[in-house]
């Protein structure tokens, strides 16, 4: 598939390439929920002293992915709802010892199985995504291909280039390790420019150790999305799962497999118009958000997002610390003042998809976006902007029309499942229709209905079997 659609929103407050190490916190608030995980299987007691790297909890629904203690400290379970609090923390680190009960994995998968298990236990597996669903892939399962992306195009999440600074060696070693997990499956390394110095350096370094095909993609949101990439690479869903890893994931693999050390810190971007100094920061999960707020965020009403402006979720006051999956914090000023005759203003400082503002005469610039809706909800006027920006090649206005008429079957036939929830259609819509949210809901509804049908079919089949067995038994009894 050729790339299509896409649009770069230029937001003020782009995080700097340099990475800042934040000061050690005194207390950690580890959220038990993040995008994919819900750590419900508690493995520590109230008041227990843990070492850094100890497993605090696991998510039983996601291959028992562990929540590691980023630092040594005393566990408090009941202080803050939905969080594990670590008090009295210090930096002693725990060394990984391979445990005894791995015999079955070795028998099944050999050395690669041990390595995969190690990745899971040391917290590196969390950086793997299923390219189709975005979920955590099976750590011991097969993959038809691996896509490694060095890009993060959404404003703003931690960028690959910020993390690759001076860590090229670790990165290429991580690629070698990744290769050793696989048998013959292809690895695709996605880069913005495959003829750059950096790309040729990578190519030189990995020659002979890892076999990765370099793929060049334009720097346009959301071409780094895993669903778009698998379609671009013509990978078929039926051929098995595709793993999707970003730069930080490869670095985590290297750390886990070369040093056998848990991956405790991560690079998180902090950007947006509401931030005084947009930076990348090296932090540990559980880092108190309040500390970041007082340190870097300008005063006033702001909305803090866990993630970028297009797909992030608000990090409300109930979230006290960074979760284990956070890739970026974006801070937007809340919309306050109502502009007088806003719609007739020349608009020198507003950048729009359509060239309806004077700003289209000036060079590209980063706008100071707020959370304002910037217009009233109106019926669709069929301007077709949503289709033009849609990277998935579906027709958002058509889906909207079908959803408006409750035609859920048509919605399914119009391939709502291809929607990657990038948020661009909602962004450009002049009628301010929440298209993305409608599609997310529709997808969930369709999924639920399918699940129900499956369950019903299963039940019918079981009933049939039971009926047959009963008849057989009755026949036998007759003889």
């Amino acid at each position: 598939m050729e790339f299509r659609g896409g649009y770069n929103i230029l937001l003020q407050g782009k995080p700097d390439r340099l990475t800042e190490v934040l000061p050690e916190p005194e207390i950690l608030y580890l959220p038990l929920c993040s995008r994919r995980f819900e750590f419900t299987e508690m493995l520590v007691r109230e008041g227990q002293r843990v070492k850094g790297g100890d497993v605090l909890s696991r998510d039983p629904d996601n291959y028992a992915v562990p929540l590691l203690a980023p630092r040594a400290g005393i566990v408090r379970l009941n202080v803050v709802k939905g969080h594990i609090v670590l008090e009295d923390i210090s930096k002693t680190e725990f060394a990984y010892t391979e445990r005894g009960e791995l015999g079955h994995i070795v028998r099944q998968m050999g050395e690669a199985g041990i390595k995969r298990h190690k990745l899971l236990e040391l917290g590196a597996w969390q950086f793997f995504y299923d390219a189709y669903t975005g979920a955590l892939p099976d750590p011991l399962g097969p993959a038809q291909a691996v896509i490694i992306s060095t890009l993060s195009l959404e404003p703003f999440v931690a960028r690959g280039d910020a993390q690759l600074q001076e860590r090229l060696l670790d990165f290429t070693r991580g690629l070698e390790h990744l290769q050793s997990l696989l048998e013959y499956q292809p690895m695709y390394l996605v880069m913005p420019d495959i003829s750059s110095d950096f790309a040729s350096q990578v190519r030189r370094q990995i020659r002979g150790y890892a076999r990765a095909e370099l793929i060049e993609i334009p720097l346009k949101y959301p071409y780094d999305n895993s669903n778009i990439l698998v379609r671009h690479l013509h990978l078929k869903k039926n051929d098995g799962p595709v793993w999707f890893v970003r730069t930080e994931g490869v670095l985590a693999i290297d750390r886990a497999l070369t040093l056998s050390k848990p991956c405790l810190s991560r690079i998180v971007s902090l950007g947006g118009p509401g931030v005084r100094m947009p930076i990348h920061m090296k932090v540990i999960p559980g880092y108190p958000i309040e500390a970041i707020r007082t340190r870097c965020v300008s005063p006033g009403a702001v909305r803090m997002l866990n993630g970028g402006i297009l797909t992030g979720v608000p990090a409300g006051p109930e979230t006290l610390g960074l979760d284990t999956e956070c890739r970026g914090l974006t801070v937007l000023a809340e919309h306050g003042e109502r502009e007088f005759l806003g719609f007739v203003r020349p608009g020198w400082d507003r950048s729009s998809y359509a060239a309806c503002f004077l700003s289209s005469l000036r060079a590209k610039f980063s706008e100071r976006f707020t959370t304002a809706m910037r217009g009233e909800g109106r019926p669709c006027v069929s301007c077709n902007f949503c289709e033009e920006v849609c990277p998935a090649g579906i027709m958002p206005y058509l889906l909207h029309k079908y959803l408006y008429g409750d035609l859920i079957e048509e919605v399914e036939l119009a391939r709502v499942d291809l929607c990657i929830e990038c948020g661009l259609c909602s962004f450009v819509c002049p009628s301010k229709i929440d298209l993305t949210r409608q599609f997310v809901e529709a997808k969930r509804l369709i999924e639920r209905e399918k699940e129900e049908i499956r369950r019903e079919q299963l039940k019918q089949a079981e009933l049939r079997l039971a009926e047959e067995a009963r008849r057989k038994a009755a026949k036998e009894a007759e003889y």
Partner: protein
Amino acid sequence: MKFLLDILKAVRPSFEAGGRLRAFKPVFDAMENFFFAPAAVTLAAPHVRDPLDIKRLMSMVIIAVLPSLFTAFYFFGWRLVPMIIVSYAAGGAVEVAFAVIRKDQINEGFLVTGMLFPLILPPTLPLWMVGVGVVFGVFVGKELFGGTGRNIFNPAIVGRCFLALAYPAAMSGNWTSAGSSWPGRMLEYVTSSNVDAVSTATPLVLAKQGELVSFWKMLLGNTSGSMGETSAIAVILGGVFLILTRVANWRTVVSILGSAAVLAGIFHYGQPDRFAPALWHLCAGSLLFGAFFMATDPVTSPVTNAGKWFYGIIIGVITVLIRNFTGYVEGVMFAILLGNIAAPIIDEVVTKVRLRRLRLEEG
């Protein structure tokens, strides 16, 4: 502007549920949001939105039509002003009445209809006819279908079509000559009974009698015809602005003008004495105005980009056919209405093909 905000805040309770004027909530909302940007904030991802809203989108059309407004004023006099006022007042009343009945918002789409409607009428049309036409257009062409966004036909064209069928004499037999020397007719109030306003035929009527008005005259607008459409240069100026701002889609315009030019060119090549050349046809009558301002209405044209090509070709071809082979001298109005009818079908076909391709692509 704080005092205005304070006034709005003070009178708001009487428009809210339980207030005496609660039926007029749509009017209050429209006023409030006209003066002050809405206070709404995003609730879910994406957390920021494009600054463009429907108000701005519609304002762009008004800006684009300014050159044509000026030439209409220059060549046909300041009777334009009462015509616009009547058009806005009568059509606005229908729009507000429906918003109140439906308890829905007042849509900005009407601002464009009300402005474009007088420009596609003969300069001397009685004011009451302007009112009747716009009321019919907005009521039948838009509100009956459910309001802006759900209408099939362009309301301004529906209004004009009604007038053309109901009052053929006033609509096609009563053309005023354009003011030729400075300051045009800017200081005149031209009515059909004005001695000074000589009744002349439009270029298309003259062409039927074998007389071609010069191309330059039509480019400037110094001919008779509907108020806004005579000056090709003004229409092109505004139209190009609309295309550059992406409010109008270039595909529609290019395909209408392209197909009309090609077909007219073929006819002219075959029988140069009987048919006017292509360029002349482009500038004559309301082809340009219709292509740039009427056919590009996003609501009534196909949504899909591929569909816009077919839509444009239908309009362009039908226009030239009507002009050259029927008793009517001008066919843009009927062509656009026919295009509007075809638009949903075109969309249906194009989306079917696209969906099939999507399904094949993904296996």
